[in-house]
């Protein structure tokens, strides 16, 4: 039965873990100021791992091992690709920004890698404790990353807030896990599913709700979203990007595997379904409406990412293979759309020292590429063709309508059209006037590559989504078997 080499299967995790230590060691050993090579080293190790993971997705052996503790199916590998892409784009777009922390540069990349490792563990976890360890590895790395600008009051405040709120949410999640263990005597997903069966007891109801709340915090589902804007605003911009994109996707991976595949066997599903529908609608509506008056680009993107979590929840509500496929597809294009927007925000904030939307004025003249990429990314988030977001929303909403929930799809479409209003208000600032008095901010090097790459991918998937759709479908299928 064991006809695979455990190292070939765990290779990406091992490389990322080793690299995070190596980067740390190089940083400690190399003299100050010689740390410029850290970014390329991290980037190349991520590219290498990504290449291997892509190969693994199509041709690698699939297995569940360590007594079901860790799963290596296409679903997990798909998410690993997603995390690696996100980490890579963050690393590439953060070069100039991280230059500022001359002495702590290497720790930044090391922590980025440990957070990525945590996410990869979450995607592969076949057991609740493994999942929790991965989650904490990710979250603790983020606590430090969010507070990375230690001299900046807002960043420290954000770090502290995230620590307190994140700790609370972890406690709730753990309480849910302990209830599950008490009820079923197992922490493995398979036995839990069969032990829970169709019975809904008050205890199992409580456990389910607690686990949903714990994960809901990570995906900033209303009403657990209140942390997001403050922390997104305070954190260093590349960290915000990673937080908004990858940690959310990791939580969705857990949500699908733990909630949808395991706990949804209970008769809870009817009550739970109505609960989730209400929460998803609230998330879409609040996220989009509160985004409208924002004047800070990071806060705007924070609320927009809350709204995006609502769209993704729609696929969870559908609960079908098509719905999961929609979530997977959308999560991937969300990486590119959001990373494009955040990369431009990083660039502007690094060059002009400001996150205010009004300081994007005249960006079309000062840096045409950045303005075009920002527009394309925002349109993708809004779901306007030919950008990828449109196809993604189509998959999500057609899946949920197929299950008979027309109203939620309707709300989703109307809200995503309403979201065009605030996305366009950023576009308006960038294109309307000349931006007198603001400096020229041409993009160069790795940042330029990141911008062009994200835009091309967003456009390419929007025009010809079939390859990614096939991958997402294969990943969703692997979950059912």
């Amino acid at each position, binding site marked *: 039965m064991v006809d695979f080499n455990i190292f070939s299967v765990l290779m990406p995790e091992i490389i990322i873990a080793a690299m995070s230590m190596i980067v740390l060691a190089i940083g400690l050993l190399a003299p100050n100021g010689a740390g410029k090579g850290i970014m390329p080293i991290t980037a190349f190790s991520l590219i290498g791992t990504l290449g291997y993971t892509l190969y693994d997705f199509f041709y690698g052996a699939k297995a569940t091992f360590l007594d079901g503790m860790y799963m290596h199916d296409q679903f997990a590998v798909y998410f690993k690709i997603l995390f690696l892409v996100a980490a890579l784009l963050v690393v590439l777009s953060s070069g100039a920004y991280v230059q500022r922390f001359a002495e702590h540069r290497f720790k930044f990349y090391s922590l980025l890698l440990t957070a990525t490792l945590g996410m990869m563990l979450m995607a592969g976890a076949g057991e609740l404790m493994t999942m929790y360890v991965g989650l904490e590895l990710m979250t603790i790395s983020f606590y430090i990353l969010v507070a990375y600008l230690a001299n900046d009051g807002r960043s420290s405040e954000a770090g502290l807030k995230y620590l307190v709120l994140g700790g609370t949410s972890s406690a709730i999640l753990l309480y849910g896990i302990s209830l599950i263990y008490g009820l079923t005597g197992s922490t493995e997903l398979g036995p839990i599913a069969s032990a829970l069966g169709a019975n809904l007891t008050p205890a199992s109801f409580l456990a389910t709700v607690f686990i949903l709340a714990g994960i809901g915090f990570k995906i900033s589902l209303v009403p657990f979203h209140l942390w997001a804007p403050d922390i997104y605003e305070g954190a260093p911009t590349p960290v915000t990007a990673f937080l908004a994109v990858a940690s959310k996707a990791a939580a969705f991976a857990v949500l699908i595997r733990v909630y949808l595949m395991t706990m949804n066997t209970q008769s809870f599903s009817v009550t739970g379904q109505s609960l989730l529908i209400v929460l998803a609608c609230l998330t879409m509506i609040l996220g989009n409406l509160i985004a409208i008056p924002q004047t800070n680009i990071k806060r705007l993107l924070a609320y927009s990412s809350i709204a995006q979590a609502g769209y993704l929840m729609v696929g969870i509500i559908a609960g079908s293979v098509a719905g999961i496929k929609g979530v997977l597809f959308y999560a991937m294009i969300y990486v590119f759309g959001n990373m494009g927007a955040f990369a431009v925000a990083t660039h502007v904030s690094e060059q002009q020292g400001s996150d205010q939307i009004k300081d994007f004025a005249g960006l*079309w003249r000062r840096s045409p590429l950045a303005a075009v990429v920002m*527009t394309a990314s925002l*349109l993708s988030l809004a779901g*306007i*063709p*030919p950008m990828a977001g*449109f*196809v993604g929303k*189509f*998959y999500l*909403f*057609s899946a949920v*309508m*197929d299950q008979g929930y*027309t109203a939620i*799809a*309707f709300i989703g*479409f*109307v809200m*995503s*059209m*309403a979201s*065009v*209003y605030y996305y*366009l208000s950023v*576009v*308006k600032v960038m*294109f*309307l006037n000349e931006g007198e008095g603001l400096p020229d901010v041409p993009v160069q090097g790795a940042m330029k590559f990141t911008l062009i790459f994200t835009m091309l991918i967003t456009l390419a998937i929007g025009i*010809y*989504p*079939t390859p990614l*759709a*096939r991958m997402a*479908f294969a990943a969703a299928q692997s979950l059912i078997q």
Partner: protein
Amino acid sequence: MPVLPIVGSTSLILPFALLAPLVAMLLIVFLPKEESKAIKLVAAMGMFVSLALSIYACFAYDRVLGGMQFTLTIPWIPDLGVNLALGVDGISLPMLLLTNLIGFSSIYASWNMEKRVKEYFILLLILIAGVMGTFIARDLFIFFLFYEIVVIPIYIMVIIWGSTKRVTKEYAGMKLTIYLLIGSAFLLVGMIALYLAAAANGNPTFMFDELAARQELYSPAFQKVAFALMLFGFGSLISMVPFHSWSPDGYAGAPTAVSMIHAGVLKKIGGYGLIRLGVFVLPLGAQYWAPIIAVLAIGNVLYAGLIALAQKDLKYVVGYSSVSHMGYVLIAIAALNPTAMDGAIAMMFAHGVMAALFFAMIGFMYEKTHTRTITELGGLAHQMPRLAIGFMIAGLASLGLPGTVNFISEFTIFMGAINVFPILTILGIAGIIFTAVYILRMIANVLFGPRRPEWDHLTDIRGPELVPLVVLGFVIFLGGIFPNILLGMINSGVTSSGLAKVLEMVSQAKMGGLF
């Protein structure tokens, strides 16, 4: 019924026509922004290729055979059943021709543009390609994709190159965008519902003809709801009362070329969609809502006509007049018979050419005199006779003077609709009086009267500026004097595409509808 019979070299006409503006756009991206002359020439050449190809398509279209021709089908998103399917029939061919006529003229109407020329023509070409794509798509998904592509370039063009008069250009642009997008949200829900209903027995598809062929899968109740959703979406696009208020503000705020394309072809997507998707695919829904559409249509004709009487700004007059004229298209669609349907399509074509010419002339007038207020203008025919001729052709076409293509189409509409909605149609005919009043008054006040010395320094339109006048004016008279060129093609589209059969089925079904 001939389904996709022809494959061959002719099937590449449509992709090339669609790609020509995009290729021109890419060339412009790599031109330096100081080379404004070269940019304009490249744009004009791109549009010329499209125009030439669509004229060729009109001649090469086999009317005896009918049906979809020049077809090209490539499976695109297999898991959703989306095909990149292009093709034209007698209904979409006039629309394709209209798009390219107006697109080509709009490049020349923008010939004097000097502000951020490069971005302007890039966006304009994307816009034209998007509109063209909607009319040649045979697949609902692709149709919708192209439709949404046009929304954003329009917004950016309005806020940058627009003009602030009664409302600011930012307001006008946002209002237009939000109206169209909210409309399209309804449309999307209707579209997915239709798609899921059609895929009830497997084989998901978005092809218009396949969707129409699966009639038995749509229950009457479903048809009513789905048609209502689409009516909302397409109705706000064709500026059906009460979803029309974006239209005059939007046109007044937009730069000339955008007004031309928007009033000329873009809002016709609403009418085209109602026919292609509403009547074809959901005939029972169409029948149910037809009386409502007819009443709202007369609302368009009379209400917008009355408001147009009170306008002082040239663009608002034409803007409300175009809302008013869309009422004729809507009542013709609501009449649900082949004659009226011929008229509806002919009217969309005729109004498109006329409105584009009107906006082009107003654009030139504004460029030279820097005002659009009727009371401030006067006697312009003395200084600018050629501009005056263009203005008059557009005006007279607008009020449906015999000899112009507009007369033919209005007449056909009234012939088709009078049996179905006698009272409403007579009210609609009365609307022509409003049109005559506001158009003639506008022409009199702007063009005629004593010579005014303050306009003596103005030069008449000349050179490239004459292109819109010559091209569009020629089409107005050609269609008016030889109506068979246009109506023959449309009629072959209506009869051969199965639309006539659908309409016959509807008329035999129990009459009643909502009332």
